[in-house]
């Protein structure tokens, strides 16, 4: 192929603190919806650019990603001093389309349940199809991609890198996929069979606490009411470490050198043991009463 000579293999400028793919080897995307997204990219048949795109994504060459309604904009550091600007555009669905979809989603609780739980329901594509719509781009023509690099190929490796990372983001937050199709979580949940939207789920504002001035009266000031019994509940080490962060899943666009979970899991298990040891601290009497007797 003649273009190989025209564009010699280039080495990208090293970036520190770029967005790093959480997957280290193998395929990108764990959830089925992320996989479906990536399948669309891989159907473009752009050969070796896929592999380079993956390694860009893993090395952290992508320095910024922004997912908006119908459009992804990103910056990718290539071999030139200024990063390239990448855009991925998808057609937005209309208000009418969404209404049709919501009516279909309301036939099974699983859709609302999974969406509210932050997951993409497995059968949502069927619901889209039944509504005469499609969640993922139906054809390659529906996706418009652009990059400021000199590579004639579109998608290029920079676009591919962004595409992979967006796929990983979908793992974390499936609603990004809806955002890309022109709506958001609030709109979808608001129309699902959940009544008046998700008012109850939204965090309530912190109630402002009234000040409690110190009492002037000495007995009230030093008053010690008996402490409640069963203050601490059952105390034992959890069988699985760092279950909390594991439940929360990946961190948005993680750029750290180590994976977040790898970095904090040992902290969790060490802390739990320290906590238990402190909880079980003895009431050691500093002086031994026996020695005073003779």
């Amino acid at each position: 192929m003649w273009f190989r000579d025209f564009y010699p293999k280039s080495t990208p400028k090293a970036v520190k603190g770029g967005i790093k793919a959480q997957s280290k080897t193998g395929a990108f995307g764990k959830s089925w919806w992320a996989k479906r997204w990536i399948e669309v990219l891989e159907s473009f048949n752009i050969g070796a650019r896929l592999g380079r795109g993956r390694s860009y994504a893993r090395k952290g060459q992508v320095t910024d990603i922004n997912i908006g309604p119908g459009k992804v904009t990103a910056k990718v550091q290539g071999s030139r001093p200024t990063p390239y600007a990448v855009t991925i555009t998808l057609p937005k669905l209309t208000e009418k389309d969404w209404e049709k979809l919501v009516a279909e989603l309301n036939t099974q609780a699983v859709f609302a349940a999974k969406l509210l739980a932050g997951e993409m329901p497995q059968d949502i594509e069927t619901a889209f199809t039944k509504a005469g719509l499609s969640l993922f781009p139906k054809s390659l023509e529906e996706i418009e991609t652009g990059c400021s690099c000199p590579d004639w190929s579109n998608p290029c490796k920079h676009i591919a890198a962004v595409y992979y990372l967006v796929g990983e983001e979908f793992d974390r937050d499936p609603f990004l996929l809806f955002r890309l199709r022109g709506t958001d979580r609030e709109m979808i949940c608001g129309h699902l069979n959940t009544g008046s939207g998700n008012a109850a789920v939204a965090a309530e504002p912190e109630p402002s606490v009234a000040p409690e001035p110190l009492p002037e009266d000495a007995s009230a000031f030093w008053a010690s009411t008996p402490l409640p019994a069963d203050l601490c509940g059952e105390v034992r080490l959890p069988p699985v470490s760092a279950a909390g962060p594991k439940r929360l899943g990946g961190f948005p666009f993680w750029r750290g050198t180590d994976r977040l979970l790898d970095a904090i899991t040992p902290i969790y298990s060490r802390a739990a043991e320290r906590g238990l040891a402190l909880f079980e601290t003895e009431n050691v009497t500093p002086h031994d009463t026996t020695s005073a007797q003779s």
Partner: protein
Amino acid sequence: MLLLQCGFADGHCLIWGERNLRPDDPHSGAATKRTSPHPFAATANELNAALTAKGTTSQSAMIWLPTIADTPLPSSPLLGESPTGTPKVKPWQVAAVVLETDDLLGFLAGIGDRPTLAPGVGVGVTLRYWGEALRFASALVAREQFLPDLVQRGKKWFARWTPTIAGADATRIDRLARAMPPACRAIGEKLPDRAANEVLREFVAFAVDRLVRGPLPEKPRKQFDSIHDDWLHALKSATGAMLGSDTDVSQLATQVREWRAPIARAEAAPFRLCFRLDEPDEKDRRQTWEVRYLLQGRDDPSLHIPANDVWAGKASVARTDLKPILLAGLGQAANLSPDVDASLKTATPAGFSTTTDGAHRILNETAWLLEQAGFGVLLPAWWTGHATKQQLEVTAKVKSPPMSGGGGLSLEDLVQFQWSVAIGDQELTLAELQELAKQKASLVRLRGKWVQVSADDIRAAIELLKKKPAKIAARDVMKLALGITPEDTPLNARGAIASGWIEGFLKELTNATFAELEPPAGLHASLRPYQVRGYSWLAFLRRWGLGACLADDMGLGKTLQTLALLQRERENGEKKPVLLVCPMSVVGNWSRETARFAPNLSLLIHHGPNRAKTKAALKKDATNAAIVLTSYGLLARDQKLFEPMKWSGVILDEAQLVKNPNTKTAQAARAMTAEFRVALTGTPVENHVGDLWAIGQFLNPGLLGTATAFRREFFTPIQHHQDARAMERLKRLTGPFLLRRLKTDPTVIRDLPAKIETTEYCTLTREQASLYAAVVNELDKELGDVQGIKRKGMVLGALSKLKQVCNHPAQFLGDRSAIPNRSGKLTRLTQMLEELLDAGDKALVFTQFTEMGDIIRRHLQETFAREVLFLHGGTSRKQRDAMVERFQSPDGPGVFLLSLKAGGTGLNLTAATHVFHFDRWWNPAVETQATDRAFRIGQTRTVQVHAFVCSGTLEEKIDEMLARKRSVAAKVVGNGEAMLTELGDDQLREVLALRPNAVED
């Protein structure tokens, strides 16, 4: 006295201290400076000495306290009386130690409910409170209820580990906040007014962050590749300060918020999804189990809303729509349970049905997963109720020959036994077990109750049933009966079913149906009915070579019951002596009570410089002795002499003194060879789980397992986790060897007289003895030359000096010198008060010397950190009435000290059940009048009167003289001291001379 206090503000936890108010101290110029130094606060050095923790940093802090006329009011009357007036909160400067090292964290978490840390160092209310709060925080950390976070303080950002407090913990922290003394949040540069709840939550966040960060934080790194690396480093550094640019950090803050959103949402929701497993209807042949979905109130967990009501829109609480909560919960739970996932195919799922196998999976796995993920799970009571949870258990069936009259049986005898297997109260045959094994079902319904049986257990049970009958020692049968599973048995042992003599023995042991014995003929006392029972119980356990802990309330006659046992032993032909160990302060008491109640028992006191120094000498001295009496100190020191002796028994008096199993004394006690062992104590041992092991190990070695096993199985579950089942097991295991009767027990109270009077014989310390000798010598020198009034005055003066020496050297010397361990009487008083205060009793203590009253008060307050009232000649009528009222109120102080002159008449102090005469008036009429303060109309309980006498001194002589003329004493308004002045020189010398064995070793 130093009371340690603790305050928390602005992310700093500070320990400070209050000392006694000293009204004579000049106040430093309060008027000029805005904040003046707290006049009675502990200095940094005093704090560090009291904390005994290393590597602390101290700083000066501002504390806001109610203040009257430039005197900050103390937290407790222990520190002195507050001035009168209207208080105003004012700032004071104090020295404070910063809570940051692991040592200090451990110190604070271990505060618990002890009143003092050391004599003179008390635990203030705020220190105790923050100790509890720290334990709450450590429980959160142990359960890993925390997440990495980013918080802004002023303009700076910090990486923090913040607690996630939801569900029951939210209720708990609110309850804890309501219990906070305002003094806990009185630290700060400005007048603090922040709500208790806010301050507590901040403290918990502070403590959790500190605990997760650990003792060895990493150095902050200036260089990092991304803001995320900056965050990770800061989460491990000492301060948590973020170093990245403001834009980057605030962007990260958004990401962190987004990441944590699901948890924040769940915490904010007023309800959580809850799963309830319903067992099949009895008639249901197909055995369908149902799991139902409900919403459970976060603040009120008993509020349940069925899913169907939610779908129907029926349930609307505070105008919140509940559907999203239900749906979001189901969506998450679907990942943990395929059944939940499948149920979501309908529009309004309310639950699902499952099979018995499915129910088994839910009980054993899914329920746990769901609970861990924060959902509510309601399981059938037979599953959750630990106490009633049924499992495959084994029982030993034991055959032994019938009890024959001749005796000769022992716990070392071997008997036939075979295992039987049961679930609940249903015994299973081998065939039934084999059938169960075939079914492979893990949940089975037996007599309408569901039971889980694991395949391993069934296999183990079949193995056990197939075994041939074997032999086992009777002692092991007893252990089985007490609930101890032998190490090589794969299934839990429930107990033993025995026939023959073992059946009889076990019944007597566990149901206390042992025979009541006739008191021994040689005992010079009549036993009250409960004492007969106690003595018979001691004899029963002794018969089987088992150790007994007699823990009757003070005054019920533990000594007498023990002497009855020893008398019986001798009458039954025992030739070997018993080793009796007690604190030095009661050696005199034992020797007197023995002489009085069991004069046939010859007693050897192993004590003093003339005691036996070699094994042979001891053996020779002890040949004819029934009792060898020694002190704890000498037990350890002369262990080599005692150890080779063949003791009939070893008895520890005040056995709580050997509660620390690692001391030389405790080790020496365990090292003795004896046929039986008895421990005597008046403290409620059963309340001090930690102390039980040492006493148990002395009494019945091995019964409570190793110290480590005891900790694991009993101490930690009971002390830290309030495990009722472990408590129950411990009771079953120790109950047969522990007898504790209270004076208030109906069976005891009707046997008790209204008033019990005892003389407590105390010993002098060496220092007291030499001072005593010096006073006597001085008098001796001067006596020959004087006559008449002058002689009388001189004698009376010397008597007064001797009484002071017997009381306390510091009283005699009048030099405000140190108090502890210098007076046998005071040591004895402290011991007795500790015991009775522990049991919830109150006491009056009379002394005729105001100076001695001051010493006693200071010493008791510093030892117990409890207020001691003191009524003396200088007390105003108003103060006196207030004291009486406080003493009489149930929560009031437990000890009332009265100088005999001031407190002798007119007062009604019936809250007291003990009266101590620390020194003696030698006038029975006056003493009786004093005693009657407690023994008055309105007194419904037995009053015990303890008259203190130093043995071998003039106190004892006068006591004897008065006792001889007791019959006429009521009429005689005479005075014991006046009698002495009438004696001739030689007689006087004899009365005053110090007799041997009066001095502690």
